[in-house]
């Protein structure tokens, strides 16, 4: 039977300096896969390399040789000695490897549990491996299983439900207010990393016009160019209250940039359309009393932070449900994996053929009356001979000859042809 082996390092075992050294570029990944393909100790292989982990998934007859090969390949392709990263490596076999790949794909092993990118990254890595023809029947099945486990966890648990970053939390709130942020007008007051990130996320929601204002007009102008928006002078921003829908503020001002009366006066000409303030500045830019006006909502950085923390806590609870699904899937996959041993397959095959012949004999005997017990025994003997002869060559083939290279494939085909898994 082929073993499933996973060797790798991640944010849990290796510091970022080391992960940077080990991370494989696309070319390096392809080269490594090509190396595995021509190596006799590794039958199947997939290489995952993201900023938080580098992992090699293999199917091989001899686990130890495969692990050695993988280590050597990593060291060679990154030109660093094995000793330098050996301590950070984890190695999982069979059931543990299956569980690990399920957990990784479902984002249960991620730095930020539930983040959605990992599934796409694994799919890409799998695509590369199939193009390089290094993934075979065993890993194909494992990966497809992993994708469906990930999908199931995403739909059945709330693992990816709520935002765990400030800017996404703001977007989520915006959606609860406006329904869709499409075509909504955004005003960005001031600049700053988090505010710019929020605007970028908003652009992902296909917002309408983006207006930027800054104390120094040039800086605002540059930002507006970046967001393909429009820059206005700082003292014009109050006039914009009449038309915008979302206001993101992050200036270094010591007092409020927008006060309650300014908003109150604009409400009527806005015809009470909702207005959403996201105040990322410390000290605050937006008068918190504005929140009490009708159809206006003000969230400051602390409010958003609180939401994020609650969401992270929720994710933790949902992750526990995900672990149960992974456990269930792991056991199932391991059971299938076990059946790929030669002997159980041959036994199952014999049983299948015997059952069929037994059924037919019984059927025929029912219509033949007055058969002596000798004659019946002769039929029995004929049955054993049939089973033996029919299965003689397949048995030899599966046991020894013919499928030296990839027994897993033939065992899998056999089980499918004769429907042995039911």
């Amino acid at each position, binding site marked *: 039977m082929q073993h499933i082996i996973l060797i790798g390092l991640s944010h849990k075992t290796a510091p970022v300096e080391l992960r940077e050294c080990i991370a494989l570029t696309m070319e390096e990944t392809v080269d490594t896969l090509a190396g595995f393909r021509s190596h006799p100790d590794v039958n199947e292989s997939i290489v995952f390399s993201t900023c938080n982990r580098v992992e090699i998934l293999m199917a091989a007859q001899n686990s130890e040789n495969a692990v050695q090969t993988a280590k050597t390949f990593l060291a060679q392709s990154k030109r660093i000695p094995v000793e330098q990263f050996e301590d950070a490596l984890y190695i999982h076999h069979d059931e543990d490897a299956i569980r690990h790949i399920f957990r990784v794909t479902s984002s249960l092993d991620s730095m930020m549990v539930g983040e959605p990118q990992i599934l796409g990254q694994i799919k890409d890595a799998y695509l590369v491996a199939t193009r390089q023809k290094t993934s075979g029947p065993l890993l194909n099945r494992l990966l497809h299983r992993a994708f469906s486990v990930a999908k199931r966890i995403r739909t059945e648990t709330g693992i990816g439900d709520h935002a765990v970053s400030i800017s996404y939390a703001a977007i989520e*709130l915006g*959606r*609860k*207010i*406006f*329904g*869709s942020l499409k075509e909504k007008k955004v005003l960005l007051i001031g600049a700053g990393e988090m505010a710019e990130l929020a605007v970028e996320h908003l652009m992902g929601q296909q917002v309408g016009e983006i207006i930027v204002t800054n104390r120094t007009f040039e800086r605002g102008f540059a930002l507006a160019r970046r967001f393909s928006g429009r820059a206005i002078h700082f003292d014009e921003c109050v006039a914009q209250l009449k038309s915008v829908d979302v206001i993101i503020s992050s200036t270094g001002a010591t007092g409020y940039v927008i006060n309650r009366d300014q908003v109150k006066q604009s409400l*009527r000409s*806005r*015809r*009470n*359309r*909702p207005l959403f303030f996201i105040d990322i500045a410390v000290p605050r830019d937006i008068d918190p009393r504005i*929140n*009490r006006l*009708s*159809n206006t*909502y003000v*969230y400051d950085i602390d*409010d958003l932070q*609180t*939401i994020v923390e*609650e969401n992270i806590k929720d994710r933790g609870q949902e992750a526990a449900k995900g672990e149960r699904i992974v456990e269930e899937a792991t056991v199932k996959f391991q059971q299938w994996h076990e059946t790929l041993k030669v002997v159980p397959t041959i036994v199952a095959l014999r049983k299948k053929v015997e059952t069929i012949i037994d059924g037919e004999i019984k059927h025929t005997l029912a219509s033949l009356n007055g058969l002596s017990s000798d004659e019946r025994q002769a039929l029995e003997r004929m049955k054993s001979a049939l089973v033996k002869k029919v299965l003689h060559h397949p048995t030899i083939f599966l046991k020894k000859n013919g499928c030296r290279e990839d027994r897993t494939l033939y065992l899998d085909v056999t089980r499918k042809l004769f429907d042995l898994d039911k």
Partner: protein
Amino acid sequence: METLVVITCGFYFLSTAGYLFYLIFQKDFLQRAGFGLLLAGFAVHTVVLGTGWYQSGHIPVRNLYETLLMAGWATAGIFLAFSHRFNLKIFGIYAAPLITLIMLVATQVPRVPVQAKPIFDNFWLVIHILTIFLGEAALALACGAGVFYLLQERAIKTKHHGFFYKRLPSLELLDGVGYTCLIAGFTLMTFGLITGIIYAKSVWGRFWSWDPKEVWAGITWLLYAVLLHERLTVGWRGRRSAILAIIGFAIVLFTFFGVNFFLKGHHGIFTRF
């Protein structure tokens, strides 16, 4: 007949349970089950009213029992129609219990036998009754949308995101649904009042007789007219619109039941013990 009413109630009750579980567990199949059961209940309900109408030859709203059956049917019908229009799954948790409640009350009130009178056989009366009932059902849903709006707005304003915040849709959608329900309800009610006035003229010879029911119906209509007018001219929306939709429906209820119990008028026998 009686069995069919029980079956109807059963479907509505199960639908309520389905929506309740949907509210708690957020599984889509529960919502679909709730919706399907409500649809089934509505189908049986239609048969009940149809047979009643066919057998007596009059639109079956001659005593409180029949009136409530009709009110439940109208609410279910309007809800089903609106569900088709809006993707607002959670709304069933308001509509299904409301319909069930109406039906339960209906089965509990005494069935006063009524004499057929010739004034019941009138085209305008049938239109009057149907439009008024459907209109009031739409206003009941507007009230529900208002309640949901207030809950959701409160969660967003107080920044306390609890049980309902996750389950309720956006303010914009809730406001939009409420507005559509208001428009539909107001239009139907206006139509119902006009046909009622025509009917009054045809049987009593007067368009308007300052009957308490008529007066209160006029007040209700005015309130909704003001609400819609303000919305169209200065953009009354959101919280204020939601509160008025709730108050408006309270007045509808008073006009529907209260007037008959506390005041007198020519609708008396239909909605009194």
